[in-house]
């Protein structure tokens, strides 16, 4: 059979020499490599205290967006649900009534919107499918839980805070724009 790479090494079946049989030089060589790492930069961080910056393409927990006037952008068009390969998203639509114009951007909105985080694979296809820029994957993990019930996220968990009434919470949820992009 032809070799796949040129890095193949034949296993030597010859008996070990005296230097190999006393093992000490090999042990010292290995220890040398280990000790040299003490003086190198540490790749690990102390997680809960220190946090590493997410990659710009990180896909975390979902956020339902509002527009600058604080109205919900989602119109329950169902494209996220149809794009979802894990079938994690369900919703129920309703018609906007008179007097609700400041809450919902269009005449139709999602009265119920749920994402089952146990099903979700964080692929980001919902974000890509959304024609209204309503759903985004944020830079947060889905928190752990002891039972399954906590993993069905409703609208109250997903909606971003209203920028008109809670500007600070909104800014925090929105995050800082990155300097490099």
């Amino acid at each position, binding site marked *: 059979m032809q070799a796949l790479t040129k890095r193949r090494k034949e296993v030597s079946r010859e008996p070990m020499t005296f230097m190999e049989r006393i093992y000490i030089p090999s042990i010292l060589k290995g220890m040398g490599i280990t000790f040299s790492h003490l003086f190198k930069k540490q790749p690990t961080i102390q997680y809960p205290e220190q946090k590493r910056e997410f990659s710009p393409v990180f896909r975390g927990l979902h956020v339902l967006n509002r527009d600058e006037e604080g109205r919900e952008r989602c*119109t*329950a*068009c*169902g*494209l996220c*649900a*149809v794009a979802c390969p894990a079938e994690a998203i*369900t*919703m*129920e*639509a*309703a*018609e906007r*009534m008179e007097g*609700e114009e400041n809450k919902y951007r*269009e*005449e*139709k909105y999602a*009265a*119920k919107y*749920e994402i089952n985080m146990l099903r979700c694979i964080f692929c980001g296809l919902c974000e890509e499918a959304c*024609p*209204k820029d309503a759903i985004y994957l944020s830079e947060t993990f889905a928190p752990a839980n002891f039972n*399954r*019930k906590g993993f*069905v996220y*409703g609208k109250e968990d997903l909606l971003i805070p209203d920028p008109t009434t809670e500007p600070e919470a909104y800014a925090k949820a929105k995050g800082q724009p990155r300097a490099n992009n």
Partner: protein
Amino acid sequence: MSEQPLFKVTIDNITIEVPAGTTILNAARKIGGEVAPPAMCYYSKLEGSGGKCRTCLVEVSKGSEKDPRPMPKLVASCRTTVMDGMEVKNITSEKVIDARNGVVEFLLINHPLDCPVCDQAGECHLQDLSYNHGKESTRFEFQKRTFKKHDLGPYIQLHMTRCILCYRCVFTADQLTGKREHGVLDRGDHAEIATFIEKSLDNEFIGNVIDVCPVGALTDKTFRFKNRVWFLKPMDAHRDCPTCSGKVTLWNRGDEVYRVTARKDQWGEVEDWICNTCRFEKKNTGDWVIEGPRLIDRHSVIAQGHYAGSIGMHQPKETFEAVHNGRKPKLLMDIHSVSNVNRPEITLSKLDRPAHSTDFKPNQD
């Protein structure tokens, strides 16, 4: 039939013999598939329809055996009858494709493109057409036309901004009801479908204008915003109806009947007209004899839920007990204890209007 001469016509290099007097469009539909030009306004069951939208334009490269000159301009295939020895180019002609792209751009000039809100999305002919022929962006920089809202009664919702003025609904109202109540007002850019003096239409068959509409201009008010069509399960069903044939398609979620429509054939045309009672008032599964899942073209988004066709015939089996030697699961989570979607106590299908925030109130806490 027998005394009528058969004409030989070649469409996109496929030859077929059709009786004299057949239109090019119908000849192409006999061949079927890609050869049939799209039609937004022509409707085989409505007399006088066609010739409005210009999407079915084709090139006639040879007029007939006796007069082989090509026709100077593209012709509307729904209104042009075949001649013996005629040669027609549809998708093989660049001119046709170019003209069709232009027509689609014109149709979309005033179209609001509110597909995320529109109930027709997923079964909209204009959507299909623009996916096949449309441009990615618009060149139209002006205000789109808007209209004063008209109320078309308790069952039918009119969105005039979405209308492409195909006149199908006007012909339907004319030919099925015998009394003209519904027509096109004004001219040019201002032309709109309306009932005169805003009176509601109370004919027993008027609901068919919903099925006939190729876009989302006329939609079912009892189904408005309830669900997207591709999440529903299309089922063939019938009932003993004194006024119509009673053969319909039910659009279900679980056992709830969300919408009733007429059965549509492969060209998107209804097979039988159905009456308003069947369409709007029989929203119980018990009212219907269910025949089985309806066949839906697998390229349609409606087929994505695998409810339709032969796949829909087979209910998925419970696998847990089979895998665990008949042992029942020890812990079962009732999804309704967690999820607020599809609550058993809220039956959206029974509402004869779109759901409002008040319908969800009792269990919001």
